[in-house]
């Protein structure tokens, strides 16, 4: 039983990260019906920017661990969000009227450009976050050792997801985003500046992806320029699992995928862990083609 709970916490930590990245996919898809394949690389950029800012500015020394970290997260989110907006302006906006496939190809191209740019700037070798940034405290929960960082990561991702959910559901701008996602034409007629909504989506989604990259760097230490691929793929899967275009769906899908992977690895086979995760995805799509929570399309009817 202890092993089960241990594996559950393992899965929750991984799932929290998947969920954060999945939000970026799902938001962009919701508004533009575009799968932003460069999103995984924005996540990588977040991890690298975090490292650069961390080592060059020594925030922790001047501001203390908590505020230093907070400032770091905000800076990384801002910068990656900015890159996301630029990405949209350069690679997607000129293709807004083209067939949807053109934008997907453009996204794949942008992904390759980002990945190689990171390699050329930072080099191909693995980069490592300094080890003594966060206190390595292990706390006992029912006699089970759980590193404090893991709990913090899960809390941070849940907090960010909650904030986003509140923003989308309860604020005026959030309503505009939802309106644009439902029907761009009608939203425009209602006086919503759809272009600004899209820009905002490309600011928030990548910012969350960048924050996830920073968390991965802080927790696992090791980052390299290809890391976005696997995380991107898993997060994309998570978004589909929960119902792409649906924000709570991305959160549920991400956490579920992490837990399925960990438990599959524990009780069936480690080598088959991805196969198990994808098998579950297929099963869910057979019985619920729009994902667990369904696409928001249902609201239209």
């Amino acid at each position, binding site marked *: 039983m202890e092993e089960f709970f241990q594996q559950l916490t393992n899965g929750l930590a991984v799932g929290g990260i998947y969920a954060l990245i999945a939000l970026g996919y799902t938001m962009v898809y919701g508004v533009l019906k575009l799968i932003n394949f460069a999103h995984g690389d924005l996540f990588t950029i977040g991890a690298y920017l975090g490292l650069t800012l961390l080592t060059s500015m020594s925030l922790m020394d001047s501001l203390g661990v908590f505020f230093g970290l907070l400032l770091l997260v905000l800076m990384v989110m801002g910068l990656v969000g900015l890159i996301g907006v630029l990405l949209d302006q350069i690679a997607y906006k000129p293709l807004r009227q083209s067939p949807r496939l053109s934008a997907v190809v453009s996204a794949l191209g942008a992904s390759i450009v980002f990945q190689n740019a990171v*390699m050329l700037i930072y080099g*191909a070798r*693995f980069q*490592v976050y300094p*080890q003594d940034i966060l206190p390595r405290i292990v706390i006992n929960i029912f006699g089970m050792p759980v590193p404090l960082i893991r709990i913090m990561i899960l809390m941070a991702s849940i907090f960010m997801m909650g904030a986003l959910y509140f923003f989308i559901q309860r604020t005026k701008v959030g309503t505009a985003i939802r309106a644009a996602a439902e029907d761009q034409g009608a939203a425009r007629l209602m006086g919503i500046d759809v272009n600004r909504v899209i820009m905002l989506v490309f600011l928030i989604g990548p910012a969350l992806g960048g924050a996830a990259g920073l968390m991965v760097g802080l927790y696992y*230490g090791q980052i*390299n320029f290809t890391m976005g691929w696997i995380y991107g793929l898993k997060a994309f899967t998570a978004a589909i699992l929960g119902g792409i275009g649906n924000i709570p769906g991305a959160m549920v899908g991400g956490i579920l995928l992490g837990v399925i992977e960990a438990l599959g690895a*524990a009780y069936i086979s480690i080598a088959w862990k991805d196969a198990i995760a994808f098998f579950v995805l297929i099963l869910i799509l057979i019985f619920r083609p729009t994902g667990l929570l369904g696409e928001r399309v249902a609201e239209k009817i």
Partner: protein
Amino acid sequence: MIRKALFLFVAVCMAFAVQSVSADTVKIGLMGPMTGPWASEGQEMKQVLDLLAEDVNENGGLIGKKVEIIAQDDAGDPRQASLAANRLSTMDIVAVVGTYGSSITEATQNIYDESQIIQVANGSTAIRLTEKGLKYFFRTCPRDDEQGRVGAQTIKDLGFKKVAILHDNTSYAKGLADEAKALLEKDNISIVFYEALTPGERDYNAILTKMKSSKPDGVFFTGYYPEAGLLLRQKSEMGWNVPFIGGDATNHPDLVKIAGKKSAEGFYFLTAPLPKDLDTPEAKKFVADFQKKYEAPPNSIYAVLSGDGFRVIVEAIKSTKSTDPDKLADFLHKKLTDFPGLTGKISFNDKGDRIGEVYRVYRVDGEGNFVLQP
């Protein structure tokens, strides 16, 4: 019109043919992972070959010509590698050095063999690569069965009774894991855990948790250094201090960077001797030259082994005064004995495997240094 076009076509072809006959350099190919997850290995291979080729050219060149290195990127991916091999084999190269991963090399072996190009692999240790009877294939690295033997011996010497083996499903890692498993079972050491992880991930806590519940005395990980570093780090975060032994793909300074000095301490690994522990005059000069040119010592033994691949090719061309692949292959198989390589003496057997004991056991100390074990 068609005739004219045809004439032009033939003329262009002839021009190319003439050009390739009158080539005034000896072209040697390098196929390595310049991009992709192993890019640091490939880029260092290129640095080593550039340095050595410069050296040859400054000292009068090769059979009256200059040596030219033509590098192609295999991206550490079998599909990309076969494209690279196709491209290289049309570029009039005499021989090719590379590549790093066994499954990548395997995708290119037949392409070079059909084009009669000598291939000297530098990091591909999977056994079956030389069991196919390919005439033009050689490797400067040892084979996994030798590594398996040394690994099993080390595990026995450390007195482990229950062993966990973890690989990553690549040709290399699985081959080594199978080899070690068979040898250990023969000696009545029980294998309590035998599974594969997915390389390139960040979180291996699920695997470690499962492994821990099988209560091994020691763990033999046959995969690569990025995963090994993460495993060591996450294992010590779990508060589990079981000894880890790694295969030669864990030999990389970044291992300690990723794991952190504290977590890496006590990690054993098998490898060909590191550049710093090479004591031949050739090796010392090479390390010094490398340091001078690139302002950092060579990191990877595989890059040095690619240098040895280049050097045996040069030696073969020099001795036979020819670039005929059959003559070169014959020379390398039969006549090259105890060639003073950067990584020790080099001779090849009939299969193209390097003869002799190469592997050593290293241990990581508290400062993150790799210490040669007696």
